[in-house]
């Protein structure tokens, strides 16, 4: 297996956009290409995450149109990745596989999504399409609903009263908004308080509005290449040390949803490939689609013992400057969650953290050498973990 690196990265401002999915992706992709000091014609394949282009813009077949939009040559294959909210992480993982295995030397990976074009009822319905449809979707279960069910399971299992757990969940939102307020690309650049979270409108009890990430438009892209080429392209290549991906069953087949077995398996694969342990991670971008989701994810990733992560949030261990800073970008919660692009935006943050580029922004995790991205699709149907490091 060859050593694989990230060269350039690119990302649009997240939030409401008047641009098409392809236009947004073109901006992110060209930033990554220019940042890699290469030409579009140097790219050998495009892996593009996009989930609901068909509903958002009536646009299928986005990958080849995106490829030609940015000037990839006519002989360049382009593929669309659909893994619900984990689509772009899947694209990055497959780009890693292709480069590590020696098939390609330079791959463009990323994603794009224009959710706000749909409006809340249709957006909620399309997201619900990622739950199993024949035995689950007909109940009108929403994604906030899935994680609301998880909140009560977690509260019962670990004997943490729901009111206490809700307070700690609110602290996740407060932390991520605090970080996002400093991120010029974030959708919500506004700090919030625990009281504001706990007094917000109820979405799916016990989850309130500010427990939930927003619908978002945006795109992100990264160039994945060999160690040798990356060293020629950029001053500070960032290595991909390990990758892992799991396939989870529908919610009704999960014996204990608090353990998210597809995440435990994906993380184990990634750690083993990299030869590192959870304690070696300096910074992580974790799938905080809902506040409880971040708490459970940090346990499955091995940062905290099962049942203890909410207490760790309360103690500030996941703040920048804490034991393991989680979501310095603001996370999905504050930065926004354009589902086809999210994994690439997480990679964008980690790559720049490892290059030490966020000092001015005030969210630099000092001395960060190893970072992790964690992306979840559906009710944990897809979990994709990617480990990045400044040394190969």
């Amino acid at each position: 297996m060859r050593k694989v690196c990230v060269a350039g990265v690119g990302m649009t401002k997240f939030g409401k956009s008047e641009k098409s999915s392809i236009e947004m992706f073109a901006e992110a992709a060209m930033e990554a290409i220019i940042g890699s000091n290469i030409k579009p014609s140097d790219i050998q394949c495009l892996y593009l995450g996009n989930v609901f282009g068909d509903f958002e813009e009536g646009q299928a077949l986005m990958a080849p149109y995106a490829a030609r939009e940015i000037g990839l040559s006519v002989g360049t294959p382009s593929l669309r990745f659909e893994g619900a909210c984990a689509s772009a992480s899947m694209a990055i993982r497959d780009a890693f596989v292709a480069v590590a295995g020696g098939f390609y030397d330079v791959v463009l990976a990323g994603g794009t999504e224009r959710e706000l074009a749909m409006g809340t009822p249709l957006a909620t319905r399309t997201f619900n399409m990622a739950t199993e449809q024949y035995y689950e979707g007909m109940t009108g279960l929403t994604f906030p609903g899935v994680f609301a069910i998880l909140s009560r399971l977690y509260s019962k299992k670990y004997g943490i009263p729901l009111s206490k757990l809700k307070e700690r969940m609110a602290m996740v939102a407060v932390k991520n908004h605090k970080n996002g307020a400093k991120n010029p690309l974030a959708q919500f650049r506004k700090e919030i308080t625990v009281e504001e979270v706990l007094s917000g409108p109820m979405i799916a009890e016990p989850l309130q509005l500010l427990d939930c990430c927003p619908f978002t438009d945006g795109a992100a892209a990264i160039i994945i290449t060999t160690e040798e080429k990356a060293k020629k392209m950029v001053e500070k290549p960032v290595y991909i040390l390990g990758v892992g991906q799991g396939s989870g069953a529908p919610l009704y087949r999960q014996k204990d949803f608090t353990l998210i077995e597809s995440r435990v398996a994906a993380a184990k694969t990634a750690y083993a490939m990299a030869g590192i342990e959870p304690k070696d991670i300096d910074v992580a971008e974790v799938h905080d689609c809902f506040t409880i989701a971040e708490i459970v994810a940090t346990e499955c990733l091995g940062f905290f013992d099962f049942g203890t992560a909410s207490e760790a949030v309360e103690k500030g261990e996941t703040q920048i400057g804490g034991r393991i800073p989680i979501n310095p970008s603001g996370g999905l919660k504050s930065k926004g969650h354009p589902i086809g692009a999210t994994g690439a935006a997480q990679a964008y943050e980690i790559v720049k953290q490892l290059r030490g580029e966020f000092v001015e922004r005030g969210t630099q995790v000092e001395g960060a050498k190893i970072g992790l991205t964690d992306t979840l699709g559906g009710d944990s149907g897809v979990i994709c973990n990617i480990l990045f490091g400044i040394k190969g």
Partner: protein
Amino acid sequence: MVTYKLPHKEFNEALKSGKLMGFKCNSCGAYTCPPKINCNECASMDMVVVEFKGRAEIKSYTIIRVSPEGFEGVVPYIVALAQLEEGPNLVGNLVGVDPDKVTDEIIGKKVKIGCKPAPPNVKYCGPIGKDGKLTPEMVAITFSLM
């Protein structure tokens, strides 16, 4: 040739007539419900179709107040996770309980499995029928307190 022993259409037709069907595995003894091609525990295809008791215990729930398109007319409604006496979990709508009055006391309560059609405006769920409308086989699993 491999034939799916209990496809969704047959499972839902049975559910509509009051029977919860699933599999018992001849290799490991585990039960699988809703159906799949092989045992949920050991992946053996040596399974027999059996009628389940149709009884479960509520494990968790949520009250949906912001709904997907098509469900606007029925909010608030309860979606619960329940464990069947035979072992597997199901996701269903808790019916016959006022969503504005339900409390955590409901966790641990015994329920009977049933089904109901989705609200009339729900579209694009299951095989896409004319104008995106649902086909008659599509029903939601329900839980009623015993």
